[in-house]
């Protein structure tokens, strides 16, 4: 009972080269930000993108050098989809990540030392060696450490948003899941409830086309998952998640609007790609080389950097300087962590119950 040629075809042919998705015409964001501010903010975003990229890259290397326990989940290629929405969050907002949101926690302002410490299971991390290396959280920044179960943070984010609405607070909850996570029942229960009460939640779907080895076409009945918004009576968008200016224009308008009105929620599907395996132990040979190459061409960073130069927002030299600064900070953070003490084994008995 061999696979039929048709079955083989469905399963094995490289994903057709994706047409660059566009915002629906109806939903084209209107430029409500002034040009100067936009430029300043784009520069800041560039810095966070770069910082995320370098931090991730160095993390992968440490893993390869065997200096880390567990495995490493790289997000390289997906920086824009986490950095840009998070850039528009404010202090009281809540962030509920899934597991590939390094860019979000960095943009949120979490000290890199804390992240590097967790990667190396040091006492100086927030969890003090208790959790898996890169399932990062930062309580001070209302950034909930991932639960690892897919889409598990969606409902929690909705609860945070409910508490904002009940108390008439102008905060939002920003929550991420992969396109794979949206198949969980919890995702549905959460979005439906947020829609009923028009809660201030931004549901980001990081669509990187694969959930471990499972392609989007075996994950969802409709590749455009954001279309589920219609069924919930809310708005949904799908756009190129690697196009930073596009994301900027979208989120700079929508997040403040949702915050101002304390709702309603919105589903945003951002198409992007993870360059490497699901984690470092995954050879990712279920994907076609051409597909990976195509997406590397669509690397959010250099494309955005060209844009910055072209628009006269930054010079090449400035961009290079940012890179160096980022590298230095990353270096310092890992240095700190490598020299930090390890946790005492018996502390694994602590923090089970709050006093």
């Amino acid at each position, binding site marked *: 009972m061999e696979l039929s040629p048709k079955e083989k075809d469905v399963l094995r042919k490289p994903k057709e080269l994706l047409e660059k998705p566009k915002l629906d015409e109806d939903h084209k964001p209107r430029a409500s930000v002034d040009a100067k501010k936009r430029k300043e903010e784009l520069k800041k975003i560039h810095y966070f993108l770069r910082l995320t990229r370098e931090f991730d890259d160095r993390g992968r290397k440490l893993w390869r050098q065997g200096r880390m326990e567990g495995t490493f989940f790289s997000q390289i290629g997906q920086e824009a989809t986490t950095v840009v929405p998070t850039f528009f969050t404010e202090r009281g907002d809540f962030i509920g990540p899934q597991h590939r949101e390094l860019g979000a926690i960095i943009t949120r302002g979490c000290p890199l030392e804390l992240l590097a410490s967790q990667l190396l299971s040091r006492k100086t991390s927030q969890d003090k060696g*208790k959790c898996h290396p890169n399932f990062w959280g930062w*309580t001070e920044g209302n950034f909930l450490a991932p639960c690892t*179960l897919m889409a*598990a943070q969606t*409902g*929690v984010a909705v609860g945070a948003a409910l*508490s904002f609405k009940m108390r008439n607070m102008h905060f939002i909850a920003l929550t991420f899941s992969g396109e794979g996570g949206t198949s969980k029942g919890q995702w549905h*229960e959460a979005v439906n*409830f947020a829609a009923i009460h028009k809660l201030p939640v931004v549901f980001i779907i990081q669509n990187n086309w694969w959930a471990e080895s499972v392609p989007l076409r075996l994950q969802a009945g409709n590749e455009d998952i954001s279309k589920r918004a219609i069924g919930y009576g809310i708005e949904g968008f799908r756009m190129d998640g690697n196009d930073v200016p596009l994301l900027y224009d979208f989120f700079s308008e929508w997040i403040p609007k949702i915050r101002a009105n304390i709702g309603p929620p919105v589903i945003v599907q951002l198409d992007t790609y993870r360059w490497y395996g699901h984690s470092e132990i995954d050879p990712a040979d279920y994907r076609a080389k051409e597909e990976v190459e195509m997406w590397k061409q669509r690397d959010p960073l250099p494309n955005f950097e060209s844009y910055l130069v072209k628009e006269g927002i930054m010079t090449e030299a400035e961009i290079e300087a940012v890179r160096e600064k980022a590298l230095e900070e990353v270096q310092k953070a890992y240095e700190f962590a490598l020299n930090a003490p390890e946790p005492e084994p018996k502390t694994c008995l602590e*923090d089970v119950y709050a006093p």
Partner: protein
Amino acid sequence: MGAPKTYIDAIVEAQAEEMRRDANVFVLGEDVGIYGGVFKATKGLMDGFGFWRCLDTPISEALIVDAAIGAALMGMRPIAEIQFGDFIGGAHDPICQQAAKIHYRTGGTWKVPIVIRVANGWAMGVGLYHGQANEAWYMHVPGLKIVAPSTPYDAKGLLKSAVRDDNPVIYLEQKAIYRVPWLKEELPEDDYTVPIGKARIAREGKHLTFISYGWVVHNCLEVAKKLEEEHGISAEVLDLRSILPYDKEAIITSVKKTSKVIITHDAPKTAGVGAEISAFIAEEAFEYLDAPITRVCSFDTPVPFYSKMEKFWLPTPEKLYTAALKLFEY
């Protein structure tokens, strides 16, 4: 002291008082709003505290608990109602994987002060899907607390403790005794709490010990009385009140005194709460034991519906009585 109160009155009162005391306390669940709950455990709360503070949810058990967690992380103290213990499985991940582990996962930096109120266990005419007692599942989940009051006084006091506790607490309401008139009692007018983790000696005795929790405690009391009257056997009744953590000291003290133990609950026997209590005793109080540790529980089947089957199935006073006599004579 006001008029005597039923078990469910105590639950309504505790919630209303906590909601008055602390604006961060609110209730959410199915039919809790206008309807006041299918058992009326939230009666009047929406009228008294407004739409948001007694919020009707869709049929989404996972969301009910997840939303409670999220609100708790943002400083509130939610009370989530699960309409029947039978339906708690939809919230299994939120309870076991989120609520129970957030404090640990965040290195002690975040707390999850939620209460999950569950209309739990057997009552008359419930059957497979309205009479389950699944607390053993949650006893195996570090990070949770579980309580199961057996009287109006404890119902009120433990619910207040649960609301004020900074950990997720599963509060098992005993629907079998929600409104039984013989359980009515006057409650203190002043604010009071009953501590989580402390058992209560419901009756002193010296020949053997019944250990139980929730409504089945009343079976024990009935049988203890009969044993005394008919045979002069003096049975102690230990009401655990808390299942996680359970009161190890109180158990040991009683075993030391009586040397014979019967554990009883309405959940099926195998791998139930009674298994842990028994194992604890066999490990920590072995030397004081004079006889096998007996468990009188429901049979290992789903909850059958037909009334005569129920009776056959449950750990009835008759079964308890027989087991006690046997143990006494051992």
